[in-house]
Each structure stands twice: as C-alpha cells, then as structure tokens.
C-alpha cells in the first residue's frame, strides 16, 4: 500500500512540476509576443488561446498546433524524467 501511495505521489508531483514548467514557458511566450509584436494563437485540446498587443499592428501570426502543445509537454516531462533517472542510477554517497 505504501509503495502504491508513493508511486501515485511521485506521478502527481511530476505532473505538477511539468505543468509549472509549461506555465513558465507560456509566460515567456507572452513576453515574446509583447516585445516582438506577434499575434500568437496556441491550441490546447481544441481550445484556442489568442494573444496580441492592443493598438499595435502585428506583422507575424504564430500558430502553435495541438501537436506542438502536447509535444512540448512531453518533451519537458521526458527531460525531467531522463535527468532524474540518470542521477538516481549514478548516485553515489558523498564521503
């Protein structure tokens, strides 16, 4: 039972960490949209998130498709998991 609880906690923690990382990436994209005067459309599971600066004309329209959003989430998760697994396997006690 303890192992199951630990495994579920680990999965939830990983998902929360990935969500926070993705939110920070979205924050960076909002910043870039503002600085570079872009018209950004992000598709998230059939919903569209549109970002643009008011009172300015956008020169480039950037669309991030559903596959891009999911791919980004998976890439971030895989990077975290890969780094953690590598460190866990190669860990040695500090003398």
């Amino acid at each position, binding site marked *: 039972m303890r192992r199951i609880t630990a495994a579920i906690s680990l999965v939830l923690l990983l998902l929360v960490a990935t969500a926070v*990382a993705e939110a920070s*990436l979205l924050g960076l994209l909002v910043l870039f949209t503002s600085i570079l005067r872009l018209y950004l459309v992000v598709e998230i599971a059939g919903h569209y998130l549109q970002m643009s600066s008011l*009172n300015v*004309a956008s*020169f480039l*329209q950037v669309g991030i498709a559903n596959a891009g959003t999911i791919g980004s989430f998976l890439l971030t998760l895989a990077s975290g998991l890969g780094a953690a697994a590598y460190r*866990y396997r190669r860990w040695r006690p500090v003398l």
Partner: protein
Amino acid sequence: MKGLLRLYPRSWRKRYGAELEDLVDQTPGGLGVALDLVIGAAVAYRDVIAGNRVLAAAGACLHGMSVAVLVQAIGFLTLILVAQRTQNSTDLSFGPFDLATVTRTGYFLHGPALLSPVNVLPLIYESWIPDAVLLVVLASALAVVLAAPRLLRRLR
C-alpha cells in the same frame, strides 16, 4: 544577522547551529558576513541534497525541466527569426504532425489597432534585432543553467 541562520537546513542547524551562532555573535557583522552566511546556506543545502538519493534525483528533474523550457523558448525565437527572413509561411512539423506555423500577414490589424494612427507609421517590427537580443539573453541563461550544478559543486 542571526535570522540568516534560519536559511540553513534543519539537520545542519541541529548539529552546528549553536556553534555558528556563537561565531556570528563574535563577528562585527556587515554585508560581507551576511553574504558568507547566505552562500554557506546554499552550500549546506547542496550537501543535504547531494547526500540523499531521492532529493538528488528530484533536483536533477527540476534542472532537466528548466533546460527543456529554455531550449523550447530558444526554438520559438529561432522559428520567428527564420520566418522574418522568408517570404512565405514557415511550418515546423515532426513527421505527420504540424507543430507550429508562422504566417506573414502584412500588417495584421486587430481590435483597436484598426483605429490607431500607429498602423500608418512606417513600422520597425520587421527588424531582427529585438529577436536576436532575446535569443542572446536566452542562450546566456541556458549556459548559466547548464553550468550551475558544476559551479555549485565547486563552491566550498
């Protein structure tokens, strides 16, 4: 000054807290001592994390995610930079999956921009300089993040 001792891990404070408190009492204080205490706390946390297998793996996980976020942000800016220099739309795809598309819209007007006098001005938004500056800033941040574990390991 003693408040800075709270920055240290609890296990460390139990073992060395009283000793360090006496040492702080004997020193005149100042910015240098405060900085030493803060760096000492970072080193103590590094030792605690490095000494625990699960904590070390969790730290590596956060580090890997930070690197991934920065790499994706750099990829986004590179896509914009490439799209600025091409006449047609730029597509980014992976196999059959379309990941992102950048379309040159002319000066795409939306919302109050339609009524704004700014849309008749010669616009400088095509310039690649802001994009390049952001790219350099992100690349520097990535270099710092990649070097951070080694720098922390060297800290004594």
